[in-house]
């Protein structure tokens, strides 16, 4: 995958450090897929000058790999989008953006038009019933796939940021909708990495905020047909219930990659059976140095206790590593 054309919504430059995390995610997902029957997991230890955005970018990279390596999703790469234009009937409900309302909302298909410019337009209305002229919107046929979505499509999916549009451009949206995990994946990452909505990876449970350090990159299976689930979950309370809950969730969702920060490394030891194939120990060097030292010691203890070994990172990593980042690779037997 060539990430060089990637851009953030707010900047034309995609920095080297961000590219590294994307590449690392891509590599981790690919490695995890090839390790499905192995009894070893890969432990990647990173020390970085600042860890913000890192786990989100790793998650994006991981999922670009997962989506791109899924033949089912690539089956019809010429897909025109989510909406089947040929089956649209009068007053069919869709999701779309109305400029007058300045938001994405329900719309209703009315009719096809052909104007003087010889272009075919599709006309939609804000209302199922007859209404004022300014509540109609005419969308050129070529833009329908980008602007009009089937009934019930999540607003998050409609508003995908440019980076994710690029990684999805060859992907069949319709099949993605069927394959819930991919959609929830994209939504979760989007919310975390780009802060485009008030929703982020924090959520409330029994009126208490759950949020913090533990980022579980899991294939979050949502039993509900609607794509409202989030891919990544974060926990800050490492006592009792929440850590158990996260471990159960990892098991149910067959998490392949787990990112832990310094404090969580001290809670979930490498030797513990957590199911993932790649564990990324993400140590922010601006955090408490004693805690960083403890984490490094714990990682080494885990490797030694499970009969793991040090690996030469050059045998595995073939993409550029910014020289502000330290990286070490080890194996752990599970």
């Amino acid at each position, binding site marked *: 995958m060539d990430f060089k054309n990637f851009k*953030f919504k*707010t*900047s034309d*430059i995609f*920095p*080297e*450090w*961000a590219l590294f995390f994307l590449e690392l995610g891509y590599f981790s997902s690919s490695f995890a897929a090839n390790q499905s029957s192995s009894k070893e997991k890969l432990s990647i*230890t990173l*020390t970085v*000058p*600042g860890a*913000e*955005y890192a786990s989100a970018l790793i998650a994006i990279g991981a999922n670009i790999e997962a989506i791109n390596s899924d033949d089912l999703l690539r089956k019809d790469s010429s897909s025109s989008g989510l909406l089947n234009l040929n089956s649209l009937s009068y007053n069919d409900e869709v999701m779309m953006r109305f400029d007058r309302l300045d938001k994405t909302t329900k719309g209703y298909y009315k009719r096809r038009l052909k104007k003087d410019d010889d272009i075919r337009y599709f006309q939609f209305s804000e209302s199922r019933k007859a209404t004022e002229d300014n509540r109609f919107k005419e969308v050129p046929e070529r833009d329908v796939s980008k602007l009009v979505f089937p009934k019930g499509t999540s607003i998050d999916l409609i508003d995908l940021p440019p980076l994710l549009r690029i990684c999805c451009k060859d992907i069949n949206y319709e099949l993605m909708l069927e394959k819930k995990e991919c959609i929830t994946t994209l939504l979760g990452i989007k919310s975390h990495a780009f*802060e485009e909505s*008030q929703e*982020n990876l*924090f959520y*409330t449970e029994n*009126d*208490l*905020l759950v*949020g*913090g*350090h533990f980022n579980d990159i899991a294939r979050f299976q949502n039993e509900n047909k609607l794509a409202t689930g989030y891919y990544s979950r974060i926990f*800050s*309370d490492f006592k009792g219930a929440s850590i158990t809950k996260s471990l159960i969730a990892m098991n149910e969702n067959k998490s392949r990659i787990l990112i832990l*920060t310094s*404090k969580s490394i001290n809670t979930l030891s490498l030797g513990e059976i957590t199911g993932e194939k790649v564990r990324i120990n993400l*140590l*922010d*060097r*601006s*955090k*408490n*140095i*004693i*805690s*960083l*030292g403890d984490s*490094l*010691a714990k990682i*080494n203890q885990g490797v030694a206790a499970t009969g793991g070994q*040090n*690996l*030469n*990172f050059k045998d595995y990593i073939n993409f550029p*590593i*910014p*020289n*502000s*980042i*330290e*990286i*070490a*690779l*080890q194996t752990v037997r599970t």
Partner: protein
Amino acid sequence: MITLDKQTELYNAAENWKLIIHPVMFKDLSLKYRSFYKLRNDERYSEDEDAQEAFQPISNIFSKINNSPLPYSNELFEIEDLGSKLLGSSLQNTHNELYKILLDYCDFFLLLQDHDTNPLLTILEQELTNLITEEGNLSNTALLIKRSYLKDVLLEELKRTFKEDDINILTHSELVNSRTAFNHVFSFGPFYDLTPLRESRVLLSPKFSKIHVLSNNISNNIGLQKVSLLSEASGFPLAQTLFLPEPEFNESLEGPELRVPSPVEPTEDLTEEEVIADLIALEKAETEEYLINEGIKKRGERNTEDFLVSAVILHLNDQCSYLVPDENEVKYIESDELDASKGFGKSDVLATISKSKPENISSGDAILIFEGGEGTYTSKLSRKRLGNKYDSIVDSLSLWKDKLNEKIQAHGLPQVSNDLIALELNHAQPHNIRYWSDYELGGPGERQDFGKLLNYLGLQHKLPELLKDLVSWRREHQKSGRELSRKITSSIKSHDLINLKEEGKASFEMQDYDGANVTAHLINSCEIVHRIPLSSTKKLIKKH
């Protein structure tokens, strides 16, 4: 959460920073410094408590001289007081030879004080002047200090020369937590103090393009490679290591010649291990002096009736400190929670409050301090809930507490303690007796211990009813403690924490509880200190 652009700026800084050393060759100071190290570690004195105590004020001055770009006449160095501290000690009678040697150090510091100009300050002022010429102002420059109490004095000193300029003075923690990278940072003192060898993160997460190290007696080999975390030493031999620059050495500035007599003690160069051990010892002495100056400890005080504990001193962002016994748990908000609060905007979610022993608290976290002490409020909550029933429980407790206080009045706390320990009440240390004698607090936890106490007080015949009331009191206080915790938690919303990192302090009024306040103080640095009177802990100490 910081913006992508800011994050990119910080990565750029981490990949391109430069290290510029400004050496000062102050021969007389260097000789004296090394001779003092040898003297302090001399086998005649290393185990001698009196001698070590006499070394402390001198260590304190050396530690400050290491780290302070202030004129030597500044009262912060406390040179004036050194003579009287030596005179006031019993050293003259017990260690006459050592006393005379230490007087030489006293004379040396007085000479230094007369000389006044600190070469570190000379270099700093010159560099700042150049920067103003090149960059127009000092907005992208910061001065890095080791101790927060240096901030005001240093600012005052620099304002004499740079009246119109805003000068950023930051502690290590403030620099590391900074969300922007400075063009220039000036650090004073030994290079080791910036490295993980001295538990500093400054070079691990550089928030600057250039760091200038202004230091006395700095050598060419500064051991920069030891900054890396993933190294052979830490068990990661195949790691890519992080960017570390080649240090640039500026021309050294010669310190003044003070014409002091040659030191009596040998003065060969110290090894790296010795230098680091020395820096730790000097800093410890500086902390001790700080505690003495603040009235937390008394000089030479060893056996008071007060119970001595190990405690963690939390240096707070607003020039205050807070001491917590290392066995006590405290409530605090983690640094990551403070960072995360930025993401909540106006939402009304509750902040996550952590509770742990103080050694687990890091700089960048915020401690929650309950004004007036939690104990008082748990009593009030219990009284509010139980009304007259609570008064009758307290009356029951007062019955034996009155007797205990009479005993303390008559015989003194140490004697009461000894008497009770002789009765096999092994927990009867002075601090526990003080707790039991407090009318707002409880009594011994075990039935048989309480029985022994009542026996001592002549109330053994009342054990059943007094024990029942003590158990009721404890149960109600635990219930009130939980209620108080809920009130504290429900009073602090995540969005209230947004500015805590910048402002260093935030107050919260407790819901449904008039006049009760919880204050969150951002922690600058923490260190463990020993032999602290228990009664001096859990108080907010304001630096004068």
